[in-house]
C-alpha cells in the first residue's frame, strides 16, 4: 500500500510536469499568441511592446520563461497577463464554488443513478424498465448548456422560482440562499450523469445477478431483498464507485465548465474558459495543473478504494 502510494505520487509529479510543459508549448506556438501585443492595448507602439517584453521576461528563452512561470506558480505569485490579478488567489476564490457544485451534483447523481439503476435492473425487460430506459437515454443525450440555459431561462428568469444564475456565499447571504442558487446547477449537471450511471448500474447488476454466488445466496434462504442488496448491489457497485471517483475528480478539478458558465457560478471552470478565450497563459497553466492534480489524485484514490471494496485486488 505504502509502496503503491509512493509510486503513484512519483507518477503524479511526472504527469504534472508533462502537462505544464505541453500547455506552455501550445500557447507559445499558437498564432496571435504573443502576450506583449495584447497587453499593450489598442494603441501599440513598438517601444511599449518592447518594454512589456522586457518587464515580463518574454524576451528570454522558452526554458527560462517556463521555469520562472512555474516558480511563480508554486510560490503563489503568478500574475495574469490580461488583468494582472494573482492567479492563485483567483483559483482560491473559485474553489468553494466549484467544490460546492461538484460535491452536491456528485452526491445527487450517485444516489439517484444507483436508485434508478436498481429499480430498472429489478424490473429488467418489463415496461417500467423500458420507460426509464428511454428517459435515461434522453437525459444522456441532452446537452448541458442547452438544458442549463433552458432551465435558467424558464425556471429562473421567467418563473422566478430560482435565481437567474450567480453564486451566493453562505457567509454573506446565508445557507438557504446558497442552496437556492446551487440547486438548479446541481440538477442540471447531475442529469447527464444520472442517465449514464443508471445504465451502468443496471447492466452491472444484470451481470451480477447471474453469478454463481447469487444463486448460493438464494440457496441459503436469504430474503430477496438481502440477496439484492448484500450480494448483487454490493458487488455491482464496485465498477460504479470507481467510475464515480474519476468523474468526481474531473469536476472538482474544474471540469464542469459549461454548467459553471451557464449559471455564472464564477468557479474554476468558468475562470478557465474565460482565460482561454483571452489566451491568457498563466491562469490556463495554473488551472490545467490544478485539474490534472485532481484527476491524478482521484485516480490513485479510486485504485485504493477499489482494492478496499474488492479484496481480490492487490495494490502492486
Amino acid at each position, binding site marked *: 500500500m505504502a*509502496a503503491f502510494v*509512493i*509510486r503513484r505520487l512519483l507518477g503524479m509529479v511526472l504527469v504534472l510536469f508533462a502537462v505544464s510543459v505541453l500547455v506552455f508549448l501550445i500557447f507559445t506556438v499558437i498564432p496571435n499568441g504573443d502576450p506583449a501585443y495584447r497587453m499593450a492595448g489598442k494603441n501599440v507602439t513598438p517601444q511599449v511592446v518592447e518594454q512589456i517584453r522586457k518587464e515580463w521576461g518574454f524576451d528570454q528563452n522558452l526554458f527560462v520563461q517556463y521555469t520562472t512561470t512555474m516558480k511563480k506558480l508554486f510560490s503563489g505569485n503568478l500574475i495574469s497577463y490580461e488583468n494582472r490579478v494573482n492567479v492563485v488567489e483567483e483559483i482560491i476564490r473559485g474553489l468553494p464554488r466549484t467544490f460546492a457544485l461538484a460535491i452536491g451534483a456528485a452526491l445527487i447523481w450517485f444516489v439517484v443513478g444507483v436508485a434508478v439503476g436498481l429499480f430498472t435492473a*429489478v424490473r429488467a425487460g418489463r415496461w417500467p424498465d423500458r420507460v426509464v430506459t428511454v428517459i435515461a437515454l434522453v437525459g444522456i443525450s441532452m446537452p448541458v448548456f442547452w438544458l442549463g440555459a433552458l432551465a435558467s431561462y424558464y425556471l429562473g428568469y421567467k418563473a422566478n422560482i430560482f435565481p437567474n444564475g450567480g453564486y451566493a456565499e453562505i457567509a454573506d447571504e446565508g445557507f438557504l440562499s446558497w442552496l437556492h442558487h446551487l440547486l438548479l446547477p446541481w440538477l442540471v449537471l447531475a442529469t447527464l450523469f444520472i442517465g449514464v450511471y443508471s445504465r451502468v448500474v443496471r447492466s452491472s447488476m444484470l451481470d451480477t*445477478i447471474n*453469478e*454463481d*454466488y447469487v*444463486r*448460493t*445466496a*438464494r*440457496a*441459503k*434462504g*436469504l*430474503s*430477496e431483498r*438481502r440477496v*439484492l442488496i*448484500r*450480494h448483487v448491489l*454490493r*458487488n455491482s457497485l*464496485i465498477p460504479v464507485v470507481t467510475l464515480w471517483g474519476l468523474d468526481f475528480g474531473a469536476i472538482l478539478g474544474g471540469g464542469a465548465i459549461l454548467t459553471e458558465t451557464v449559471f455564472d457560478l464564477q468557479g474554476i471552470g468558468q475562470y478557465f474558459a474565460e482565460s482561454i478565450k483571452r489566451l491568457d497563459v498563466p491562469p490556463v497553466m495554473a488551472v490545467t495543473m490544478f485539474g490534472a492534480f485532481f484527476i491524478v489524485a482521484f485516480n490513485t484514490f479510486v485504485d485504493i478504494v477499489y482494492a478496499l*471494496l*474488492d*479484496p*481480490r485486488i492487490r495494490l*502492486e
Partner: protein
Amino acid sequence: MSELESTRIGGVPPGDRARASSRGADPSRSGTDVLLDVRNVKVDFNTENGVVHAVDDVSFSLAPGEVLAVVGESGSGKSVTAMTLMGLTRSPNAVFGGSARLHDLDLISASGNELRRVRGKEIAMIFQDPMTSLNPVHRIGKQIVEQIQAHEDVSDEQAMRRAVQVLERVGIPRAQERAASYPHEFSGGMRQRVMIAMAMACDPAILIADEPTTALDVTIQAQILEEMRALRERSETAIILVTHDLGVVADIADRIAVMYAGRIVEMGTLDEIFYDPQHPYTWGLLGSIARIDRDRPGRLPSIPGMPPSLINRPQGCHFRPRCRHEFEACPRYPELESRLGEAPGHHDRCWLSAEEKRTRRVVGEGERDRARSRRCGGVTALLEVAHVKQHFPVRRGVFNRVSGHVHAVDDVSFSLGRGETLGLVGESGCGKTTLSRTIMRLLEPTDGTIELEGRDISHARSRELRPLRKDVQMVFQDPFASLNPRKRIVQIVGAPLMHHGVPRQEIGRRTNELLTRVGLSPEHANRFPHEFSGGQRQRIGIARALALSPKLIVLDEPVSALDVSIQAQVVNLLEDIQEELGVAYLFVAHDLSVVRHVSDRIAVMYLGRVMELSPSEELYSKPIHPYTAALLSAIPVPDPRANRDRRRVVVGGEPPSPIDPPSGCVFRTRCPRARELCRNEVPRLSEYPGGHVAACHFPLNVSEVEVGCAGKSPLSTRDSGNTAPALVEDDEMPLDTGALA
C-alpha cells in the same frame, strides 16, 4: 426477484393422469421412511426457439441418510431437477408441474416465502464451481453467519462461534483465523469445504450437491467425498448427488437415477445399476468410461450420435435415435416401472423384456479385442526435452523488484518418439500446461533445451519458428472458447493452410477431406461454431490441427470438457488418426483414466517436476512413486464392489506453493513415507526394469533385486543427489494393487 412469477401447469395432462394415479407413491421403493417425495415433476422453459422440456415426469423418493445419485449426460436435466427442488429455476419463462413433498410442504407450488424458510434450513445445496460460488467480497465466516442468521435468531458472536465450529468440522485448519479470510485466499478444495460447512451450518435434512467435485483434482475430490460421507454418517443427512462421474457414484451412492433427455430412464440400487443395468442407455454410459482398473480396450465403446434436442424430442422412447435395439414398441411412451420380477425397486423405461435385455446386454465389451500394439522404445526420437525450466518472476515493492520465482516447470527431461503418445498428468498447477506451451514455443524456456528432430528450438526466433508451427499443432481444452465465433468452419480449418500459402481451390478440397476425416460432413463447412455441440467443436479443433499434417499434436485436456459418451468418440477418433497418420501426441490431462487409455508412456508431474515416467500399463499396475500411488488410489473406480474392497489412501493437504517449493523431494510435505533423507536430498530418477523411472528414495512395489540394480537415469534433475533408492520394511503406504491389476 423472479421468484413470484412462476407459473404452474394445471395438473398433469389427461394421458399422464391415469398413469400417475395407477403408480404407487414411490415408483422405485415402497419405503415408509420417506423424507422427500417427488412425483411427476415437469419443468418447461419457454424460449424463442420453442418450449424446452428440460425435465419431464421425474419421480423419486429419498429416505433419511440416503445418497441418491442422479447421473446422465450434459443437458439431461440433472441440474434443473436439483435446482427446481430449491425453487432456484423459478423464472417468468418457466412452467412447472408435479409435486415434491417435504414434510407438509410441496416445494413445487410453495410460495416464495415458504420456500425461503426451507432453503438452507431443510435443504442445502452445494454447487459445481467452488471458485465462483462464494461471494468474493465477503469474508468466509460472515457468509456462514449469514446462513445461520437467515434461519435462526442468534447473536452475531454465537453465529460466528458456530461458523468456526462447522469450519473445523470440515477440516479447515486454524478455523478461527481462517474465518476472517476472503474466498480468493482459499484453494478450490478449501472453498468446496467452506461450501459444505455452510450447507451443514443449519443441519439440513437434505443436501443437494451438483457436481461437487468435478472442478477438483482427484486427491482433493477424495477428501471432499470423505467429508460428505462423514456428514451423512454424523447427522443422517440425505444427499442428492448430481454427477456425470460414475466412479464417484460407485464410491458413495446408495441408489442411482439415470437421466436421459429430461426423464429418468432407469432407477435402482447401486449394485442393480452397475451389475444388472436394464436400459440400453445405461449400458452405453457404463461402457464408455475409460477405466483405470481394467485392461485398456482397443477402442472405447461409445454411444453413437448425440442427445436429442429438448425442444423436439423423439416420440416415445427418447433414446430411440441412438439405440441399437429399437423395435416396433419403442415409439410408444415407456413408463418408468419394474420389468423384473425379482427386483421390485429396480425400474426402467425400456420396452425390451427382461429376457431380451439379458441376452442383448453388452456393457462396453464392444471392440475390446482390437487392442493396439504399444509403441515404446525402438522408435526414433521426434522431440527431446532436456532439463527445461520455466520460471516466472514475482514482483514486489516500489520498484517492482523481483522478489521470487514461480517454479512452474523445474528441470524436466523426456523424449517422445514418432507416432508415440506421451501422457502428461498431475494435479492442477503442477506445470503441465506451462510445459506444453513451452514445447510449443509459445513461451521461451528459462533454461534447458528442446529439440525437434534434432534441431534445437529452445531459443529460436519467430521467423525460425514458422516451420515448427507446421510440425507441431495444438488442440485446446475448451471447445467453446478456442474457435472464433465469427468465422465459418471452412475458414477456421483452412486458416493454417492459408497462412502457409496453399492455393484457394486446394484449401476447399483439403478442408472437406479434413472434416470427413474427423467425422463431420463437408456440408458443415459453411456453418459457424455455435451451431455445433462441444464434441463436434472439438472435432473441428482436431481438423484444424491436422490441416498441415503435423508430426506432433499437443493436446491440452482435449476431452475434459466433454461428456463421457462424447469423450469416448473423440478419444477413438484421436487413436484412429494416429494409427493412420503416425502423428505423435503429447496428451496433457488430469484424468488418469483417459490418459491411460490413450498413452504409450505416461509422465507424472508434481510441482513442476517429473515424479515418475513409465509405460502406461506398468504405471497403473505397479506405481513406484508414492505420489503416483496416491493419485491412482484417489480415483474412485466405477465398480462398487471393487471400490468396497479397495484399501484407499487419502493423501491429505494440498500442493505447496511453487514459489517456494520444499527442499529435497517436493512431495515430502504430503508423502506418508517421507523421512529425513527426503528433506535433505532431491531424489534422482532411478531406472527400474520395464523402462520405468521414478524419483523416490523409498520406492513402492519393487523387489530387493530391482532396487539393487536401479541406476541413475540421465533424465534426473541437475540438482538431484546420487543416493540409490532403498527398500523400507514397514509399508506405511499400503497400495491396493488388487483392484488395479
